[in-house]
């Protein structure tokens, strides 16, 4: 995408710097002159919000690491020390813990935005897949972070998840020992998880740069899902989206700090305020809420290996989505049947979340199995068939024509 506004710095230092390393012009191209479709709605702010949350996690995380001790004998106490003794320690920890949840909320909305508006389709398949890589890295990072306070849920969550790898035929046990550094989750495990929990957010930041780079080649998709025809369809990122995103940032921070200040443990689990005990499993182990749909898929299959396979497949299937949904029309707005099934999928995933939070018995088990079946049906059968048979509504001539018609 060529910029509509060339970069013309006045400051002598900036000129000199940019000639030798075009850092300023790259930033200008990405954050000021980046031409966006003029019809983007608020759902398009969630990418920026995700970037904000990543920043929040990295900053609070680095500070927490200055007070935390990664040892099984001291980790739990050091977190209590952060909560009680360190100046503003409680704030930093609550921001970091709830920040992870909000990061996931934002990214889930961002992903479903892409699912609805067909942002995964050509020419943005790679962009979509880079996003999924970020999502997988986020899951790994959050999982290892949750182990660090060394509470009961930390310990037993880590035990259950690392045991998933034991289900892999032949090499599973060796991989598990390699993850543990021993014969169970123990001090070596805590140490390496701390190291990796520190590392991975920076890997995420790197992949996010690739993600945005890949975004800026074709440019943003838009609610109509049609290609930009020329400058009349576009506006510059600054001041339009900077202002719009700033509004969404305020809204997010408002809700975020309401939770941090008034319900900081709402999304946590009380068992994690009990120090880890390798000899006692809590009666009901649940992972953090953002893993629940996948946990439900794991449990709804009565075979250990197949359960693990289904759980990973549920995420990996999204990598194939650009080729499963062959419809040329991107936006759900013009796909009357797709649109309805999109909402069925949303409800299905939320239902799986509730199933994951409840014991796998009675009605929950049945709902879980039906919802798991639907999830795979949606991607593997419904979308490929629908994209062939669905009669889509006529697309507008151009973005500006549609926008003007709406406001005429």
């Amino acid at each position, binding site marked *: 995408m060529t910029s509509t506004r060339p970069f013309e710095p006045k400051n002598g230092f900036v000129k000199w710097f940019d000639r030798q390393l075009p850092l300023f012009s790259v930033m200008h191209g990405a954050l000021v002159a980046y031409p966006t479709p003029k019809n983007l709605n608020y759902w398009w702010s969630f990418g920026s919000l995700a970037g904000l949350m990543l920043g929040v996690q990295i900053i609070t995380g680095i500070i927490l690491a200055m007070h935390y001790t990664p040892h099984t004998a001291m980790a739990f106490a050091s977190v209590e020390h952060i909560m009680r003794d360190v100046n503003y320690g409680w704030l930093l920890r609550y921001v970091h813990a709830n920040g992870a949840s909000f990061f996931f909320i934002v990214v889930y909305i961002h992903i479903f935005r892409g699912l609805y508006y067909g942002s995964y389709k050509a020419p943005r398949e790679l962009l979509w897949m880079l996003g999924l890589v970020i999502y997988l890295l986020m899951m790994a990072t959050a999982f290892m972070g949750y182990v660090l306070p060394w509470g009961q849920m930390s310990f037993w969550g880590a035990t*259950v998840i690392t045991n998933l790898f034991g289900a892999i035929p032949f090499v599973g046990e060796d991989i598990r020992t390699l993850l543990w550094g*021993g*014969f169970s989750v123990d001090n070596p495990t805590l140490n390496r998880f701390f190291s990796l929990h520190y590392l991975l957010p920076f890997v995420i930041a790197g992949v996010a740069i690739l993600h945005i780079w890949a975004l800026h080649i074709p440019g943003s998709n838009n609610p109509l899902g049609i290609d930009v025809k020329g400058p009349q369809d576009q506006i510059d990122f600054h001041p339009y989206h900077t202002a719009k995103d700033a509004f969404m940032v305020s809204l997010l921070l408002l809700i975020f700090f309401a939770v941090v200040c008034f319900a900081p443990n709402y999304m946590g689990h009380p068992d994690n305020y009990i120090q880890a005990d390798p000899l006692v*499993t809590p009666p009901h182990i649940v992972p953090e809420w953002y893993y629940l749909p996948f946990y439900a898929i794991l449990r709804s299959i009565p*075979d250990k290996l197949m359960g693990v396979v289904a759980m990973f497949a549920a995420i990996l299937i999204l990598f194939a989505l650009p080729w499963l949904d062959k419809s040329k029309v991107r936006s759900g707005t013009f796909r009357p049947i797709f649109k309805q099934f999109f909402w069925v999928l949303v409800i299905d995933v939320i239902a799986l979340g509730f199933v994951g939070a409840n014991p796998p018995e009675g009605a929950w088990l049945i709902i879980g199995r039906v919802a798991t079946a639907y999830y795979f049906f949606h991607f593997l059968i419904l979308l490929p068939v629908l994209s062939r048979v669905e009669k889509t509504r006529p697309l507008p001539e151009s973005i500006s024509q549609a926008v003007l018609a709406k406001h005429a």
Partner: protein
Amino acid sequence: MSTTDSTSEHHGEGVKRRDFLFIAAGGFGAVGAATVVWPLVDNLNPSADVLALSSIEVDISKVQVGQSIRVKWRGKPVFIRHRTDEEVAKAKAVDIKELKDPQTDADRTKPGHEAWLVMVGVCTHLGCIPLGEQGEFGGWFCPCHGSEYDTSGRIRKGPAPLNLEVPEYAFLNDTRVRIG
């Protein structure tokens, strides 16, 4: 194009020499890379001090019939149960053909000490600790995803694929066992 011909002839010979050099250099590089990578991976495996803790001795003289104790071995609980005659009889009566992981009760105990069941108290599903004397089969019940084990610790119901693991162990005498 006589020059091309002569070079291609020349080439024919050169290719063999080059191939050898490429493969030799590549092979050397691959071996070198593997030697560098292995320490980077193997350091994640259990270290010497962790391995050193891998065997323990337990005094079982105080465990009465119908009682169990739990000892910690390699960071995990080991259940040592002094089974009642009834439990042993029940475990022996099972037809092993109906088991998911077929093992007789004799496979899981030591001759002369059939009343004693020694096993790693870790559910073979995803590693929770099952609760004793519970569930349909009077053995162990795992609260995590509902696996049930019988009085011999064999899997009877639920998602776990295998019987509770019997570790390597030996009776040193009638009142002492060494695990590991």
